[in-house]
């Protein structure tokens, strides 16, 4: 493996293992931001629980798999 290929391989491996977003959670947050985060998580979890038990809320067909372009264009994350 050439020197350049070795550096690229190392950089690629680092990209996968060193994801700042995935690896940190509550580190260094103020009490105010932490409380806001917990409030939003609580609302999402409450709806998750309710939707799972409420058959009229979401039919299975409603959750479509949009292609990645659509998700990218919307700015929404989870494609």
């Amino acid at each position: 493996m050439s020197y350049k290929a070795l550096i690229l391989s190392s950089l690629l491996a680092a990209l996968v293992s060193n994801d700042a977003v995935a690896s940190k959670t509550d580190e260094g947050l103020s009490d105010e931001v932490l409380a806001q985060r917990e409030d939003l998580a609580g609302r999402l979890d409450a709806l998750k629980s309710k939707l799972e038990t409420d058959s009229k809320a979401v039919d299975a067909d409603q959750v479509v798999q949009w292609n990645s372009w659509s998700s990218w264009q919307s700015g929404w994350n989870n494609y």
Partner: protein
Amino acid sequence: MSAPAGLIKLIVMQPTPYCNLNCDYCYLPDRDSRQRMRPETLDAVGRRVLANPITSDPVTVVWHAGEPMTLPPDWYEEAFSRLAAAAPGRKVQHSFQTNAVGINEAWIDLWTRWNVVIGISLDGPVDLHDQHRKTRGGGGSYALTMRGIERLQDRDYPFHIISVLTADSLRDPDRMFDFYLQHKLRNLCFNVEEVEGGNKTSSLKAPEFEEAYQRFLSRFVERSRSLPGHFHCREIDGVIRLIGAAAETRRHNPQVRPLEIISIAVDGGMSTFSPEFLGVKAPEFNNFVFADVQVEGPEAMLLDPSFQRLHADITAGVEACRKSCAYFDACGGGAPSNKYFELGSCGGTETFYCRLTRKATLEGVLAAYENDLELA
């Protein structure tokens, strides 16, 4: 040390920068240029990107950053074939985002043969659409777009609609809903008029429109729940999927992860992060071009000093969002291009764009479900 598989998930290809329309909110800077991607460049994309072990299988290729239908169907027949020949066995989901002007049998035959996903830009009723989506002669483009849509419907070819919402369209969500219902448009996506690239202002840039956008989406949830299974709306489904996702995946943000999205310009220049960086003049980042696909593969971008400076800025911006924003766990740090265009730096935090597309979208959809399910 082996290369991480599946890193590249989306490839945005610019077959030509040219657009046959002249929409007043368009962010693309070079839409007068008639340049088209050369066959040799297509071969290089196939060999160095599609066949690359770090590219996911299947991978999505989006033909965009100009109006793709200004090149003829034969051009794509050759382009798709060249890409397939250069990366045998790789499953590729081709996708067009188009203004639908000029859809005919030849286009639908091409898309049918290659199973192409079609998105059409249509902003709603004729007055709303024609207000911004102009022909190069200055007239409205509504009739041309609707003719294309009718041809797809005649052939039962599936497609989705992307509507850019402006201040006028937010005022009457029921009118928008009834329009889609009347024209049997069942798969909907909403974009907002952004401050981006060549578009320096937005009719939505006032705090009252964040509330108006929330009300708009809440009303769409109410109306669509009265017609179960009839409509699929990307924004509503996106929030539902977010609710169902594990906490760590809610923060996944492909626009801040190097190489997850690769953009390839008409001349072979490669970029990453936000596709909206393509074609933007930014000397401090070498115009966001970090490698040339005709010379080297996408990994080479990682060694480029301009890429490394931008990556550092984006990482700082994500960290600043993480420390300051209540919505970070449902966002993952925003869109670098919007930070750059609005704040002048990818190291910043909140933008007008994220207030609308992340915060107001989430609040609008959540509020409707909370109200309906008596959780409020």
